[in-house]
């Protein structure tokens, strides 16, 4: 089949060398999850290690809160993060402490530098620095500094107070100013009598905005209120501070502890401030307090709640007023505190841990109960994760008699314990199904598959209760039902794996099985023989078993099986796999079953060497991690019945998350039947009216649900999903990269641009293009370096992506076009009409531009201004971004069409109700259809398509026989029109009015017919020659049918968010 690839045919590029040499870093931060937990006070050594599923710690930072019962300076700890591990460390072991920790892990857009071991500031040293490599942008970077000491002498508390800040490279002792970069993180203290250890992190969040300063609360004062240089929105901002107290303060905790809050008059309406105030409870004549502070503002949807609370009576716990519900998988708390404590021996009264007890309740706990009241200013930071947080996507793929429901992982801290993370593949879920109507029931109690809940049925329980205690080395486990658990798996046949979790104790384990009956897993291995698969440890009755397979999920994680039992004394672990190097770092951390992990210093072909950190409770195992992928609900009717599925994440055996709207957690599916409809896929979040984009074995579609979904073409199941900040209304552009590989790029309505690796689904980069208003609506056009001429190749080292903007205001005429480098998203050039010699500004670009690689030209059609008259046809040099020419050519909202032989462009205008044609073989505007060809009473409403069925090998039709297809709005209904280019204009070959006076989407050309979707829920196949309706196919659910693409099959989008795969040719007709 001949296939027209939009993006390949419509690509062009350019780059201005100056900008290209200095790419600005501007990615976006997309949260993966917030891990959290508490290290209990029982850790007796000087460090506790928490195993995490954190493969790349360079995209994560940790916030720790410490409390202790003792009153000395040793009541402190630091937190060091590394791949798959959090190390909570204190300098000595003379007193127990408790640490509440929060690790914010990002998928993209955050880069963290840190010290891998604590930095020692020796006794007698007042200041030191840490080198940052590479240098960080001071506009978008902030620092987190923790310090500790082993000093137990009361009266020395001020010695471990350390102030850290990003320093101006040119001026020692000054903070790095806005607009500069730095490679210096500086630490200061006044009292140097004691050595201290420092753990630091420098976090760079692209598109975050950071203001910073050094301030001092005077010795006789209790507060200071530095001004911010930029007014900020407090609901998007948080304050970080660290400080040191002057020599002579001597244990005066009340003078050291300062709380922070935004202050001053509203500077841009309610909730906007331009001051920060630091307040301590008591002043002292020799006790100045020196502060380093930063105000971090996010513009990516991150929300920050500020509040204050004070304990009353004799207390150790402070609970603020309940806040509105937070998703605890994307939220972390921070606080600052002041207290009128009585001098020395009171460190324990101002150090609190911070934990959420529910989605709405925050709790602060100190190590000692006292009547001394502290004032706690807290900040609750909820990072942007996805539109439908906490269940980013629920999708249903319908095949013949079967529906596969898939959901993205849900995380919740309530299933965390000190050493076991919330299951790395996400928490368990229960799925209810109802036939013919939305699920309105809510589950309660422990439910097994097949149970009835109101009008709904449990079709997936996600977990099952064991009927008896699970003993170590058991070979079978009996549960309520094994429905939904795989009976044949791809993970090393014929093994399947399940996960066992005790919600009471937090103990977890995983095991393999070879058989399954209705209620029993069988063939669980016993013993610890060489090469032994996973056996099960002992678990109490009512433990939870949950299914997963190693083939599920998005990430390939190496699996090896151990050769021998592992004990806590093991220093070497041999495996049955050789080599084991694939996927394992030369040194680092590896995981064992059940959440345990170990560190190793080197690898041989089949063993880990230099092993430390083994928990004695685990005697054998292997590391396997994956996320919930989905389950198949089979045996369904294929008579057009609609099945509704609603997903409820679980936080315990009988605890369900019910706080999401129906549109966030429910999908409908109609199992296909017959030869034409191969499958459908429906996701939550919004419409998917654009044509899907097919590449390799996947099909991509963008949705109003803030995501780009990649499906497997063969069966419609999810390959991967990329969450976005905004709506993606443009066509996703799939292209072959010049350097090898394939990529998909697109933009969203907030101005973010994304590029993913087609093979892995990995987000390569994101970038927010600099706009004063609006975002990106049009599809992205690509110019591949490999297909371009020498001029282009000399100017650009890689492919270019052309991104055009859309302003939301009717009168906004300052739209721009950007060329981004395909490798990293840096801006190669910017076309700003107002500063590029253009005769007028540029109205919004709604439709995808077209690129002529051979001539290095980019053609863009735009709207023509609020009152008309603006230039609306633009021609840019793709190499430089320079304006070649522009023209007032009507109000244009639909993609421009470049002919296969790259000799002509065509586009339809809204206000002139015509189709325009230009010969582009020279840079002169040669409008061959003078004034355009009128299509009145119709108004163009779609992309034009060129009939390729009569083209020669050069892509040219016989003279005078070029034919175009376009959809028009006739007022009383839509039509598909065929126009034949006879040179001086277009004559009508035929016009096909909608049979019911309804609407048509854009057409697509197949081998045998011209296909078009319709607002009546059908896809029509029109005869090329006559426009006659040969066939039509009613889609399930009868949505408004969107645009389509052909890649051996027909893929169609719709208003309901459903994408359809239709086998061609269509057959049958519609009544």
């Amino acid at each position: 089949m001949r296939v027209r690839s939009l993006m390949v045919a419509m690509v062009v590029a350019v780059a201005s060398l100056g900008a290209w040499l200095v790419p600005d870093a501007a990615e976006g931060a997309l949260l993966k999850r917030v891990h959290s937990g508490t290290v209990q006070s029982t850790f007796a050594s000087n460090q506790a290690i928490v195993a995490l599923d954190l493969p790349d710690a360079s995209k994560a930072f940790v916030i720790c809160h410490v409390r202790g019962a003792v009153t000395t300076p040793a009541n402190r700890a630091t937190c060091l993060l590394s791949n798959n591990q959090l190390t909570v460390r204190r300098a000595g072991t003379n007193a127990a402490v408790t640490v509440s920790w929060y690790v914010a892990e990002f998928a993209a857009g955050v880069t963290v530098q840190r010290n891998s071991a604590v930095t020692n500031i020796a006794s007698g040293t007042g200041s030191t620095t840490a080198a940052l490599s590479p240098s960080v942008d001071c506009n978008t970077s902030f620092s987190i500094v923790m310090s500790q000491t082993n000093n137990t002498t009361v009266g020395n508390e001020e010695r471990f107070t350390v102030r850290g800040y990003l320093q101006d490279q040119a001026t020692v002792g000054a903070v790095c100013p806005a607009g500069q970069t730095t490679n210096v993180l500086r630490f200061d203290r006044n009292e140097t009598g004691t050595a201290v250890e420092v753990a630091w992190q420098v976090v760079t969040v692209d598109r975050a905005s950071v203001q910073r300063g050094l301030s001092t609360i005077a010795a006789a004062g209790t507060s200071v209120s530095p001004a911010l240089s930029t007014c900020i929105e407090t609901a998007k901002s948080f304050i970080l501070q660290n400080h040191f107290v002057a020599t002579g303060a001597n244990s005066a905790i009340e003078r050291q502890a300062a709380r922070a809050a935004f202050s001053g008059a509203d500077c841009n309406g309610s909730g906007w401030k331009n001051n920060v105030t630091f307040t301590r409870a008591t002043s002292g004549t020799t006790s100045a307090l020196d502060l380093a502070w930063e105000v971090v503002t996010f513009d990516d949807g991150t929300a920050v709640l500020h509040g204050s609370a004070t304990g009353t009576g004799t207390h150790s716990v402070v609970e603020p007023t309940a806040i509105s519900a937070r998703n605890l998988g994307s939220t972390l708390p921070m606080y600052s505190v002041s207290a009128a404590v009585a001098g020395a021996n009171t460190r324990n009264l101002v150090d609190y841990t911070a934990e959420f007890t529910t989605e709405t309740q925050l709790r602060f706990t100190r190590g000692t109960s006292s009547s001394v009241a502290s004032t706690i200013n807290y900040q609750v930071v909820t990072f942007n994760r996805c539109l439908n947080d906490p269940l980013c996507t629920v999708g249903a793929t319908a095949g013949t008699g079967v529906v596969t429901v898939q959901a993205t992982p849900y995380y919740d801290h309530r299933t965390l314990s000190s050493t076991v993370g919330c299951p790395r593949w996400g928490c368990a879920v229960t799925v209810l199904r109802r036939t013919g109507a939305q699920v309105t029931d809510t589950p309660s109690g422990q439910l097994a598959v097949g149970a009835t809940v109101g009008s709904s049925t449990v079709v997936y329980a996600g977990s099952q209760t064991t009927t008896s205690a699970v003993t170590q080395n058991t070979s079978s486990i009996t549960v309520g039902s094994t429905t939904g658990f795989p009976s044949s798996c791809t993970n090393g046949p014929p093994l399947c794996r399940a996960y066992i979790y005790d919600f009471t104790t937090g103990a977890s384990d995983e095991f393999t099985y070879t058989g399954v009956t209705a209620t029993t897993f069988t063939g669980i291995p016993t013993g610890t023989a060489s090469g032994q698969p996973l056996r099960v440890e002992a678990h109490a009755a009512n433990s939870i078993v949950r299914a997963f397979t190693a083939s599920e999920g998005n990430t390939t994680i190496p699996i090896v099986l151990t050769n021998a039992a592992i004990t806590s004394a093991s220093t070497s672990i041999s495996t049955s796999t050789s080599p084991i190097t694939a996927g394992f770092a030369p040194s680092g951390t590896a995981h064992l079953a059940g959440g345990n992990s170990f560190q190793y210093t080197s690898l041989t072909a089949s063993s880990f060497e230099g092993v430390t950190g083994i928990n004695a409770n685990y005697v054998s195992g292997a590391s396997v991690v994956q996320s919930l992928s989905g389950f198949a609900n089979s045996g369904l009717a294929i008579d057009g019945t609609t099945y509704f599925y609603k997903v409820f994440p679980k936080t315990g055996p009988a605890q369900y998350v019910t706080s999401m709207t129906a549109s966030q957690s429910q999908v409908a599916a109609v199992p296909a039947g017959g030869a034409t409809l191969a499958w459908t896929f429906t996701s939550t979040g919004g419409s998917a009216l654009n044509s899907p984009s097919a590449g390799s074995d996947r099909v991509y579609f963008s949705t109003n649900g803030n995501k780009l979904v990649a499906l497997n073409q063969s069966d419609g199941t999810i390959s991967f999903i990329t969450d976005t900040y905004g709506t993606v209304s443009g066509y996703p552009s799939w292209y072959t990269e010049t350097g090898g590989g394939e990529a998909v790029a697109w933009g969203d309505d907030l101005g973010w641009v994304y590029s993913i690796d087609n093979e892995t689904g990995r987000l390569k980069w994101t970038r927010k293009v600099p706009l004063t208003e609006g975002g990106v609506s049009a599809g992205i056009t690509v110019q591949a370096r490999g297909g371009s001429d020498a001029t282009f190749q000399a100017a650009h080292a890689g492919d270019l992506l052309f991104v055009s903007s859309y302003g939301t205001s009717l009168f906004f005429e300052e739209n721009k076009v950007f060329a981004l480098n395909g490798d990293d998203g840096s801006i190669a050039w910017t076309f700003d009409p107002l500063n590029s010699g253009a005769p007028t500004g540029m109205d919004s670009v709604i439709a995808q531009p077209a690129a002529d690689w051979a001539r290095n030209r980019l053609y863009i059609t735009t709207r023509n201004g609020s009152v008309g008259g603006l230039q609306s046809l633009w021609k840019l040099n793709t190499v430089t971004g320079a304006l070649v020419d522009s023209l007032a050519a009507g109000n244009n909202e639909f993609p421009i069409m470049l002919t296969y032989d790259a000799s002509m462009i065509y586009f339809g205008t809204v206000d002139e109700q015509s189709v325009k044609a230009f010969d582009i073989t020279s840079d002169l505007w040669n409008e061959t259809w003078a004034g355009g060809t009128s299509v009145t009473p119709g108004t163009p409403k779609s992309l034009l398509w060129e009939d390729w069925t009569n083209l020669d090998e050069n892509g040219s039709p016989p003279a005078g026989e070029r034919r175009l297809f376009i959809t028009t709005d006739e007022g009383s209904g839509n039509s598909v029109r065929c126009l034949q280019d006879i040179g001086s204009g277009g004559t009508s070959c035929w016009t096909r009015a909608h049979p019911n006076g309804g609407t048509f989407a854009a057409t697509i050309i197949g081998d045998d017919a011209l296909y078009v979707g319709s607002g009546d829920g059908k896809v029509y196949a029109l005869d090329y020659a006559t426009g006659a309706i040969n066939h039509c196919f009613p889609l399930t659910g009868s949505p408004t049918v969107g645009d389509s693409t052909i890649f051996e099959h027909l893929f169609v989008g719709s208003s309901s968010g459903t994408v359809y795969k239709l086998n061609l040719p269509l057959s049958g007709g519609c009544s």
Partner: protein
Amino acid sequence: MNRRTLLALAAGLLLATDALVPLAGVSAVAAKDRSDRNERREERQDNRREREAARKSREQRPDRDEKREGCALLGEKPPRPRRGDPAAKIEFFGEGRDRRRQERQRFNAAEVVTVVISVDWKNLDPGASQRLEVYSPDGDLFRAFVAPASNDRPVDTPFPLRGWITQHSLYGTWCAEVFVVGDPEPVARRAFTVRFRQ
């Protein structure tokens, strides 16, 4: 001071300015009145036309079960909030070619490129966020928005009409529904209409 108060003050200022230049002002007010009357008449005509079109559409599309549009497709109205519970009022604004932002429920996509959906809240807890869901005339969730919300000022959400709506002729009665994030039940909903007339 909320935005409505500001608008009222702005309107008052406009009238005061008119009074300073009586001839031009009278003319402008008269022209504005004529324009408003024309718009209202046009809306009534549009209503009739769309009712007729909807009737024909229903008759001509018997395979689609679409007897209703907009909020009527979403089931029962949200109950009236009890005292102290979060309450929300939804308003729609369009920016016309006269550069005025006008509160309306009907919009011509040929003239208005963006509808601003404004939600004015009461009794929200600190740190609350709103979820705004917008449903197309055929009852499908077209798009959702999440944003921080407070009792201090309305949350304005721009809703572009150009692009998917015009390209797919999604004209008719739409429905905006708002929730407090964390509560699955809507607080308020209101319909608005999008049409296209050159």
